[in-house]
């Protein structure tokens, strides 16, 4: 009796502690017993005789024979409960206990774990998107590089093609001008000389534009080379003044040149690159100045040449100052023609010469451009470079050139000076001629039919023919020059060639051979 009472007490304590509730159903799922505390979980109407399917939601679909645990079922009260179905011989006991504490704890952990996993998934997805975007960018970059390479190649090709006809134009107008000048200076001939002079200036201007285009092609490939040599600075600045004066005169603006040295002033610098920079900077200044003046200053100090170009043009806004060194950039509102390459190339050349291009400007106050480059001074007298001073040396020359206009021009100019010139129009004929006849000097183009100039140089090396060969090419690409020099050419001239340069080189070659 005592034991039964104790057992009942224990059971009571246990039921209360676990918040246990229960009901029993028979095999037809009819409720045959139920604890009173079922209502604590929101299970109402669970009374003897009722059908469990109707009054307890989780009972629908279950049977009285299967043992089953249903953890953490949300009860109608909102509390989580654990449900255990315990079948006996003829009935099923359903125990319901509180699982709130466990569910709350689990909720916290699971929520955090799931959120973390979602974050990781999101990160992976974002990484993948980033990778895809990066791949796309890389592809775009490759495409852009290819487009840039094609553009460069196109520009180089075009400028190369332009050089050959320009050689003819400049050469022949020179001949016509000389003929007109020697015919006498009556009024009509003077007009013609002026007209021809205008054609020559335009041609040279066109040539400088072409050179800029070609140089732009080299900017990315580091092919612009500076070749310092003995140069008379005073003569170079005078040449530039003579070249650009007609442009300033045409616009009725003053062109002032202030040199801090006198002729001769021999320094070591790349005269053609320095000339190119000056033409670019002064050409810009004159182009953009409609009234007032353009002033060029140059002085030597401690083996450094300091150059300044000052104009009274419209000036440049701070916004545009940041852009003017970009290739092809031109202010939209100036209405001035040009390639937009001059400043880009000048900046690069000045850098290669060891200086830095500085630009300062303000809208309405003009523009100042300056640079300072090393120019070590030499004491020696300048070498005689005028054509009339070049000594004549009897020589038999072979000219290999497939462009007949240029070939005729060179033959004419050399013949006028008393040289004996044979012309062939392809590399194979040039090789045959050199194998069968004696020549003192060869002037040869690179790009010729049947055999190129390179092929001829190679064959001459193989056959041991030592006749000095000067290459005359429209290609100013450094690698072409290097290739020709590697194949043993005596010198490499870029079209349009000056006939005096040809004679000087020939004399040098003949002297060395002797």
């Amino acid at each position: 009796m005592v034991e039964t009472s104790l057992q009942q007490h224990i059971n009571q304590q246990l039921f209360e502690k676990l918040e246990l509730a229960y009901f029993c159903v028979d095999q037809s799922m009819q409720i045959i017993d139920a604890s009173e505390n079922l209502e604590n979980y929101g299970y109402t109407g669970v009374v003897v005789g009722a059908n469990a399917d109707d009054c307890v939601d989780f009972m629908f679909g279950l049977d009285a024979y299967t043992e089953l645990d249903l953890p953490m079922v949300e009860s109608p009260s909102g509390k989580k409960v654990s449900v255990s179905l315990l079948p006996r011989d003829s009935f099923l006991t359903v125990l319901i206990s509180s699982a709130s504490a466990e569910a709350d704890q689990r909720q916290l952990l699971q929520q955090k774990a799931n959120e973390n996993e979602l974050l990781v998934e999101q990160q992976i997805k974002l990484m993948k998107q980033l990778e895809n975007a990066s791949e796309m960018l890389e592809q775009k970059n490759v495409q852009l590089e290819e487009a840039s390479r094609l553009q460069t190649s196109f520009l180089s090709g075009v400028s190369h093609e332009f050089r050959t006809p320009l050689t003819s134009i400049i050469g022949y107008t020179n001949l016509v001008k000389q003929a007109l000048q020697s015919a006498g200076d009556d009024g009509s001939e003077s007009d013609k000389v002026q007209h021809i002079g205008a054609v020559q200036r335009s041609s040279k201007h066109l040539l400088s534009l072409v050179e800029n285009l070609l140089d732009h092609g080299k900017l990315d490939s580091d092919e612009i080379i500076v070749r310092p040599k003995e140069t008379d600075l005073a003569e170079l600045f005078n040449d530039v003044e003579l070249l650009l004066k007609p442009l300033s005169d045409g616009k009725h603006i003053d062109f002032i040149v202030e040199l801090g040295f006198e002729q001769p002033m021999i320094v070591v610098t790349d005269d053609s690159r320095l000339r190119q920079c000056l033409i670019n900077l002064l050409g810009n200044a004159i182009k953009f100045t409609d009234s007032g003046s353009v002033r060029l200053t140059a002085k030597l100090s401690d083996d450094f040449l300091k150059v300044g170009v000052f104009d009274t043009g419209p000036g440049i806004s701070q916004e545009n100052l940041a852009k003017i060194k970009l290739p092809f950039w031109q202010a939209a509102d100036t209405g001035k023609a040009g390639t937009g390459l001059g400043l880009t190339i000048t900046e690069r050349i000045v850098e290669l010469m060891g200086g830095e291009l500085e630009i300062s400007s303000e809208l309405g106050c003009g523009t100042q451009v300056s640079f300072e480059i090393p120019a070590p001074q030499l004491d020696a007298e300048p070498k005689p470079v005028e054509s009339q001073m070049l000594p004549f040396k009897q020589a038999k020359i072979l000219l290999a050139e497939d462009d007949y206009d240029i070939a005729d021009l060179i033959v004419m100019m050399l013949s006028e000076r008393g040289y004996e010139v044979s012309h062939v129009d392809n590399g194979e004929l040039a090789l045959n001629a050199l194998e069968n006849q004696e020549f003192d000097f060869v002037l040869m183009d690179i790009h010729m039919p049947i055999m190129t100039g390179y092929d001829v140089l190679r064959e001459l090396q193989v056959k041991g023919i030592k006749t000095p060969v000067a290459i005359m090419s429209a290609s100013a690409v450094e690698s072409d020059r290097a290739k020709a020099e590697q194949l043993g050419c005596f010198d490499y001239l870029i079209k349009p060639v000056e006939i005096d340069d040809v004679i000087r080189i020939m004399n040098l070659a003949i002297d060395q051979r002797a």
Partner: protein
Amino acid sequence: MLKKKICMVGDFSVGKTSLTQKFVNNVFSEKYLTTIGVKIDTAFVNDTKLIVWDVAGRDSLSPINASYLVGASGIVLVCDGTRQSTVLDIKDIWQVVKKRIGEVPAVVALNKSDLEDWHIDAQQTAYFEEQGWQTFETSAKDGQNVKALFEALVSEIG
């Protein structure tokens, strides 16, 4: 009146509770609250009373508790159209279902169709077609195809 037990199953955070709540109470919440255990709701499709068991989602640590499936007449397989893995996981989940209660009628909800990065291609859903399941692009947010999904399942159950 007919009464049927159906179960919502799928990976965690695919929108089982959202679909159920949209269907049962026509409510939607953006807030993600993971389901612990199971929540039981009732709703009607025509004259059929559905006892809807919204079962806690499967995650990497805990599989679906197959006890909840006992007595179910149909299954709604839910996956998230923005998470490819949840679509592929349906195959495994179906094995659990089949093992416990056999091949009951099922429909598929490709949920979260309202989201921008929703991306499902035919290759991923080929398995659903093989099984002959009706597949619905659903959105618990705007209610797209939610009703149709449950109606289709009731119709499949017969």
